[in-house]
């Protein structure tokens, strides 16, 4: 493109802090940009402003109490965090979870994925300047929060699962409301697409912005929609099924070029796949208990394990080491998908403009509560 003699135009670079107090860094992310005009020469991503030491805290809490701490990591998708944690402890203890609990967990996790993607789409579009989509998405997310409120009484940090199953069965009529929500969400998806998918400005702002190839994405540790946007069909739900995913049918959408637009398309398709999963799970929801045989005192035998699930942001992994003597984990480690995805930001933004930095942070979909823990 630029056949201009580059060096002639070189000037001193401007160092500018984007964040931690910035409207588009999705919390307290700080990106130190080195700019030549508006072009990003280099950047340094600084995190840790929301570090609360959840890992350390968890090593001083009971296994049952930790569920509550996991809520505070990816607060946009708290139930997913609960699910990952509970499954890890169950794996460590060899607990069997009743099928009904697995199905309800799947429904909750997928509702949560839709809620999280709603927040993502809204904020991402707003970062690029399309304000209205945000309000639409928040409207739909509100319906999910209502569903969760009816299920467990909370709207943001649910504490909605427990080791071995669920604390509560679904209330009467809840499934009907979930179906109703699915219908509404499916309709509204068309609205979002009308506003964005074929919008020329949207295309110009997202196409060929932050392109990352499949092998590069794997190497830098991307997971979830950003990885799938680069054409790698990797989804923990398919590859290492957990909960009830092995009994449900769904597709894993992948992108072609790995740019911001592909990541957008992948997530939009995931809305539809999640709705599909929820419908199937509701159709096949088995009867039975919601809690398996769980010892009164949760005290796994000595040993350690790593277990990953597919959170809305990517691979959410838990590594738990038990010493076999204590009722709290000896080592509790979370592999937050946002943390690893955020690492790619530097690679993505180099050579792009300031406006793209914002678009790229949005397209990675980071939640700082999870990055910093």
């Amino acid at each position, binding site marked *: 493109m630029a056949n201009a003699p580059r060096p002639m135009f070189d000037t001193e670079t401007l160092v500018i802090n984007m964040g931690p107090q910035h409207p588009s860094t999705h919390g307290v992310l700080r990106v130190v940009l080195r700019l030549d005009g508006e072009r990003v020469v280099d950047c340094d991503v600084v995190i840790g402003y929301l570090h609360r030491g959840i890992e350390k805290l968890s090593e*001083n809490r009971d296994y049952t109490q930790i569920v509550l701490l996991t809520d505070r990591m990816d607060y946009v998708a708290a139930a997913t965090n609960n699910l990952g944690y509970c499954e890890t402890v169950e794996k460590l203890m060899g607990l069997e979870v009743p099928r009904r609990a697995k199905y309800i967990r799947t429904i909750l996790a997928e509702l949560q994925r839709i809620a999280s993607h709603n927040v993502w789409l809204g904020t991402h579009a707003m970062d690029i300047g399309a304000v209205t989509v945000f309000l639409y998405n928040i409207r739909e997310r509100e319906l999910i929060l209502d569903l969760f409120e009816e299920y467990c009484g909370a709207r943001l940090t649910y504490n909605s699962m427990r080791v071995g199953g669920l604390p509560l069965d679904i209330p009467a009529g809840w499934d009907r409301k979930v179906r109703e929500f699915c219908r509404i969400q499916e309709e509204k998806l068309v609205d979002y697409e009308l506003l964005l998918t074929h919008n020329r400005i949207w295309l110009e702002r997202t196409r060929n912005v932050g392109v990352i190839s499949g092998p590069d994405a*794997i190497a830098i540790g991307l997971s979830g929609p950003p990885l799938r946007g680069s054409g790698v069909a990797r989804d923990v739900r398919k590859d290492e099924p957990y909960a009830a995913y092995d009994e449900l049918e769904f597709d894993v959408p992948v992108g072609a070029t790995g740019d911001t637009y592909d990541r957008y398309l992948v997530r939009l398709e995931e809305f539809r796949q999640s709705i599909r999963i929820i419908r199937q799970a509701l159709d096949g929801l088995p009867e039975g208990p919601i809690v398996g045989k769980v010892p009164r005192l949760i005290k796994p035998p000595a040993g350690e394990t790593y277990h990953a699930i597919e959170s809305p942001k990517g691979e959410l992994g838990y590594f738990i080491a038990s*010493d076999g003597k204590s009722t709290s984990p000896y080592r509790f480690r979370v592999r937050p998908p946002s943390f690893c995805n955020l690492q790619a930001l530097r690679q993505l933004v180099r050579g792009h403009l300031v406006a793209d930095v914002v678009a790229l942070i949005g397209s990675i979909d980071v939640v700082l509560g999870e990055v910093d823990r």
Partner: protein
Amino acid sequence: MPDEPRPTPPAAARPVEKKIEAPSGPPDPPPPADLAPPAFVTAAQAALGGAITQLSYWVGDWTILTTPARLLDLARVLRDDPACRFDFCSDVTASDWPARESRFDVIYCLYSTRRRHRVRVKVRAADGEPVPSVSGVWPAANWLEREVWDMFGVNVVNHPDRRRILMPDDWQGHPQRKDYPLEGPGELLLEDPLEWLRLRNAQSTAEIE
């Protein structure tokens, strides 16, 4: 010094205390005799059997233990061997077993996006013992190793960018060590308590101003 108000309560009499005396490491049980190791394990063994000090199997997870010196060789084999192809570094973390002489376990959780299998690699390292960085093998390990350094003080060497990541740059101590109290740094643990106190007071006066 005694006149100075103590910045935090002493580290003694905290629940952490009872952990320090406790376990000396995870059992890392060997695989049962009737269980055939998967292809990636045999391939790794065939490629550099000497590097694998121990093999462990627990609740479905395979763990390969190795030494810091041979870590990079093993990492390359695991990434490049056609039977392994562990191209995705899920996680790098550590755990602290202070009762043991080489107190840190550095744990690498690997995944193959092509073969769809997982393995963990584990390295035992003493405090200050150099552990080579694997970020040359998996660029994803960059930040993860920074976190390991930040939280545990595992001496990751040849790292392209070894800075603290979650804690402030001038932080003293490594918070996820077992002898680091939950409520924050007591002066007992500090590498140089006087220096720390001086910095802290200077900072708080600066804040007041």
